[in-house]
């Protein structure tokens, strides 16, 4: 772990491009088979551009960015996010994270996930256990 956690530190970006099978695999792994994520025809019928990403899959990318930066799963104490934008398949997602405060061995981090101009996860707040 090379990252030094101080206010203003930007954690390493996480870049990931969901492939066409991402929502199928995640539906099986998570148990969320909402047809807007797995059925192309249904998604279009309800006015979507096609199958869309699960918000919780995108949140998992935000969580992964934190645990990879801080050094493992035990480091993530809290993560809170808002879902507003719609995530689509086969387009790169970029997770960015910036430390706001560090106190008592806990780093508070502001984080978000963007896909192009769309903030698919916004107002993300993470608390990381350091050391």
């Amino acid at each position, binding site marked *: 772990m090379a990252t030094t956690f101080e206010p203003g530190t930007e954690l390493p970006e996480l870049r*990931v491009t969901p492939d066409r099978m*991402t929502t199928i*695999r*995640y539906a*099986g*792994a*998570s*148990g*969320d088979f909402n047809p807007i994520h797995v059925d192309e025809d249904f998604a279009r019928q309800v006015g979507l551009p096609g199958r869309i990403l699960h*918000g*919780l*899959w995108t*949140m*998992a*990318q935000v*969580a*992964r960015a934190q*645990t*990879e930066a801080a050094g*493992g*799963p*035990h480091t*993530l*104490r*809290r*993560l*809170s*996010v*808002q*879902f507003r934008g719609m995530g689509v398949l086969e387009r790169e997602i970029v997770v960015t994270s910036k430390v706001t405060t560090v106190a008592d061995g806990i780093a508070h981090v502001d984080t978000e996930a963007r896909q192009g101009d769309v903030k698919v996860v916004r107002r993300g707040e993470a608390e990381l256990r350091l050391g």
Partner: protein
Amino acid sequence: MAVNADAVGKTYPPVLYAVGREKIKEFALATGETEPLYLDHEAARAAGYRDVVAPPMFAVVYSGAAVSPVMFDPEVGIDFALLVHGGQEFTWGPLVVAGDEIETTVLVKAISERGGNAFYVFESVSTNQDGHTVCVGTWSNVVRGA
């Protein structure tokens, strides 16, 4: 449509989830994780864990099993055609490891109406077999145009 908030405060019987090694690996791979603690039980044991460790977001699996029935509760009355997952918060305690048995209880924390939308907030509390709280989740759902 007026939002019915009668279900606020309602709790549900606990749901027990047995955490399996292959399920953790499946979830880790589906979310792009490469951390050996999630994928390789020998690496996890070498690091002092009994078996593979669940990524934090695996909370979706063990607590989601308890939240789904609440979302379909007619007393809560969610209109699925207009439903959006608005926000999510998890606070984690001790790590979950394959072989754990996680019990989750869910509470209807809030139902409100604002700007023509209805807001449904559920809280899940997940406890392991040793009585430790491994995760508290706050699930925020928005029903547009309610």
